[in-house]
């Protein structure tokens, strides 16, 4: 994979930025997210999560399955504030 390749499209994070964060100590999907913002955008990593696990796996020489998925948090899909607050008035 080319270093200029955009891996996380929501936050425009490149493969090079991800590799650099792994080099600086990121050893998990969550650790990568906190260092680079990869997976923090609108899709919350649903698109790029697998790809990022593969980069981690290659750089650290561990199987893809050894990387726990990032902590998933509600809401599962983006929800408008109007819906969250319920309709009273």
């Amino acid at each position, binding site marked *: 994979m080319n270093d200029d390749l955009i891996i996380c499209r929501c*936050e425009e994070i490149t493969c090079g930025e991800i590799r650099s964060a792994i080099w*600086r*100590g*990121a*050893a*998990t999907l*969550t*650790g990568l997210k*906190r*260092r680079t*913002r990869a997976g*923090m*955008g*609108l899709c*919350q990593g649903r698109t790029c999560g697998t790809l990022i696990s593969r980069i981690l796996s290659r750089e650290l020489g561990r199987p893809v399955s050894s990387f726990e998925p990032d902590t998933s*948090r*509600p*809401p599962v899909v*983006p*929800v*408008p*504030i*109007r819906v*969250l*607050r*319920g309709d*009273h008035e």
Partner: protein
Amino acid sequence: MRRAHDVVIIGAGVVGTSIAYHLSKHGVDAVLLDRGDIAGGTSSACDGHVLTIDKNPGYDSRLAQKSQAILHDLIQQLPLDAGYRNWGSVLAVESEEDMEAAERFAESKREHGTAIRLMDRAEMRADAPNLAEDIAGGILCGSDSVINPMALAFGLAEGARQNGVELQPFTEVSAIDLDEKGVCAVRTDRGTIFTRAAVCAAGVWSPRIAATVGIQLPIRPRKGHVLVAEQDRLPYWRNMLEFGYLMAKRGVPREVEPDMEQCGVAFVFERTVAGNFLLGSSREFVGFEPGVNPEVVRLMARRAERFFPCIADVHIIRVYTGFRPYTPDHRPIISPVDEAPGFFVAAGHEGNGIGLAAITGRLISDMVLGKEPIVDPSPLLLERFAAN
């Protein structure tokens, strides 16, 4: 892992990394331990306000201001961009009656040297055109800022590492050992480290560590929820808190619906460098229960819409929770421990740890090195709880 260090710092949140960084500038031989990754605790489950506006007039305001000043300089030296932005913050005041209280609050803060300014209804609307029309006014503090707390912790850790501090994440401390002179070792799941100085910066988990040297810390988890909104839909360019937030923070009764009062819901708006905005806040004592409570989310969303009606159609992309390290007097414990020489506590920053990280690092560095402390630490010492 080396077997001996002059100083062992336990916990790599904003507080522990700031301590590591400050000590590293003096060339101290230190190791920074965390049972998880750097910035894996409360420092990654919070907001990033660096505030003086919400602090009590007097000591608390001065401490926060001093911390802001240290952070302002520190930020230029860090090897990573921590997303520090000096956008200022505004306390929004709902009603004319509250305006009087707000004026008194502003006046006494000014007497203690905080540069803040009252804004009337018209001025508020000019600064924040999207604000609900009936908001009576506000107080503006121009020195208040935001920062990305995780980036701050990573930057401080990296800075400390470049100055020679050893970083040792994924290493859990199980106990601290004492001999006749005081601290002699820190035991971890990856072996024992011999040392004469151990700093406990384990946030809300600090009581467990202090207990191993027979010290009780009055720190409890005070849970908070944060709503993350999508990018590019900002209703305002500064940060904003409702005046009632000051009451919620101190547990003083407010004029809001009982369920809001119960969960300590008060409006907090943070603009992030990434172009999102974050909505807070809630305050609950529910132990270490991390789940997102839909009822609390509902109340927070309602409260936010009350101030910025235009955000009704903005999407929330994520909700997270974190645990503030609460203390009974809402002040951190930044202190040596007489009963265990060589043991220092830097924990209990409740909802102020990001803003106070800089001064905490400096104070602990002063204490460990036996220097004259940069500010009078007496209101922060552990012994203040001994009388009760």
